[in-house]
């Protein structure tokens, strides 16, 4: 009977063709998924190869911990740049984290739906502003503000907090860079933290509210602990963006290769070093390789931070379950 034609050899052939095609598609998708990993590895190895000349000539510790940057004399110490990167990033985080957390909490837990729908797109818009615009704004507004208002004000307490010592007559400083950077990473941090809060089930909030807890108690004891791992992830993501941000920071941070002691010192973060100097003064021996090593250092810092965050998150999540 024709009704049993499904089991004829012809249809078996069709099935095997379909499963072959399926396997092909599967391999193709695998290849595409592997592409990012391949890219990361190839970038890392290219930087590694290009930094070899200087790594052979100088021990790694001397490069990373050396504080003198005099390429003409063959002295390549990255410490000023590494510490500049860290200073600017830390200042940006100190400014951005509390503001972002409170904003995300407000938007997710207190604001009405209408307000949320109004403010969210505005925040996303902030994330779309090109970084050079932030840089110009930093030069025009933040720099003079730091120079004329913040530095004179905070330096009154410099005998208690040495990091407030006013050392720099211009506004081009770590604080200015950190402030611009804080504004730049805020939209990302807020957006991710908000999404994380939104994943906390409504029933959990209701459970707390039903016991007569206030909104704030509910946020503090029910929502935040449930969301903490995601919040940490959002902060670290913001942090790694801050580490790598180049344009806006180099426009306001002063770019002096020194180890900073105060937030009013000028600094010279790694990305600024690379962007300012690559393609120039290439006649100096080992200069090219030094910049590659700087890139490698930056990349390793960002990757290390992300790896650390992933491992921490996994640990936190496992502990909670």
């Amino acid at each position, binding site marked *: 009977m024709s009704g049993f034609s499904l089991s004829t050899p012809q249809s078996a052939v069709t099935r095997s063709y379909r499963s072959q095609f399926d396997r092909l598609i599967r391999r193709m998708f695998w290849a595409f998924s592997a592409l990012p990993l391949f890219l990361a590895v190839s970038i890392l190895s290219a930087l590694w190869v290009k930094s070899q000349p200087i790594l052979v000539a100088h021990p790694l510790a001397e490069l990373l911990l050396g504080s003198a940057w005099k390429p003409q004399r063959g002295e390549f110490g990255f410490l000023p740049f590494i510490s500049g990167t860290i200073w600017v990033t830390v200042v940006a985080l100190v400014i951005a984290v509390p503001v972002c957390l409170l904003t995300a909490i407000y938007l997710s837990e207190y604001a009405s739906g209408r307000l949320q729908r109004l403010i969210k797109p505005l925040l996303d818009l902030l994330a779309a502003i090109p970084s050079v615009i932030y840089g110009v704004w930093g030069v025009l507004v933040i720099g003079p503000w730091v120079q004329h208002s913040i530095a004179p004000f905070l330096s009154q307490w410099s005998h208690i907090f040495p990091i407030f010592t006013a050392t720099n007559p211009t506004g081009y400083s770590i604080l200015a860079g950190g402030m611009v950077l804080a504004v730049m990473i805020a939209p990302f941090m807020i957006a991710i933290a908000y999404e994380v809060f939104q994943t906390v089930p409504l029933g959990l909030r209701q*459970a707390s509210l039903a*016991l*007569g*807890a206030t909104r704030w108690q509910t946020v503090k004891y029910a929502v935040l602990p449930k969301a903490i791992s995601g919040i940490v992830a959002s902060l670290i993501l913001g942090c790694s963006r801050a580490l790598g941000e180049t344009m806006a920071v180099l426009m306001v941070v002063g770019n002096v290769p020194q180890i900073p002691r105060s937030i009013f010192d000028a600094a010279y973060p790694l990305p600024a070093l690379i962007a300012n100097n690559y393609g120039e003064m290439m006649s100096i021996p080992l200069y090219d390789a030094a910049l590659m090593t700087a890139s490698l250092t930056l990349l390793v810092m960002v990757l290390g931070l992300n790896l650390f965050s992933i491992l921490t998150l996994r640990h936190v999540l496992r502990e909670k379950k």
Partner: protein
Amino acid sequence: MSGTLPHLETQNLSAYYGTTQALEDVSIVIPRHQITMIIGPSGCGKTTLLKCLNRFIELEENARVEGKVLLDGENIYSPTVDVTEVRKKSGLLAQRPYPLPMSIFDNVAYGLRIHRLRSRHELNQAVQQYLQVAGLWEEVKDRLHCPASQLSIGQQQRLCLARGLAVEPEIILGDEPTSALDPVSAQHIERRLIELKERYTIVLVSHILRQARRLADYVIFMYMGKVIEAGPAHQVFNYPQHERTRAYLSGEF
């Protein structure tokens, strides 16, 4: 039951979500220290009515309430009333348990702590007492400081019961509190509720008629946002006055 004042009462209560009316002119009484069950087909407004009783309705976007809900004669929607006090007086059992992200002990102690009871000794005592009332003590007494999320879902629901009782409410509100549980755990909860009605007024929403017949002392039947019939359970189940109630009870919809 004659002679006892209604514990809760609604007067001309209407609720809206935006322009949709979910409750229409609901006036009911909920007798003290009995199990009142709100029954009706899905979408009839049972859960909305329950949410009006502890002002949870205000957590919904665009929700609006008209009319009064009287708790011991006092309108809980009056502007001078503190909403946290209203909610403290009524424990909530949700459809599925939501243990707070903390230990078993801290879950039960949570309500006490937010209402400013701090003494270690009193906390220990209260936690044990309410876990016993909820029928969970024997199962968890050796691991009070483990995360509550490690419990089975039936145990979690009993934990939520203990957590709710710990703030010493007068009323227990349950929104289909056994619907996510296996039959044995559901039976556990039902047995607790029957014990608890001696001291608490219990209001349950249920779409399981058999459960309503087992538990209810007083029944409110709703349809399309209106209360069709309300009265003592034996009366409503055996001698329904309204055509719709009869149809629903015989399983026609």
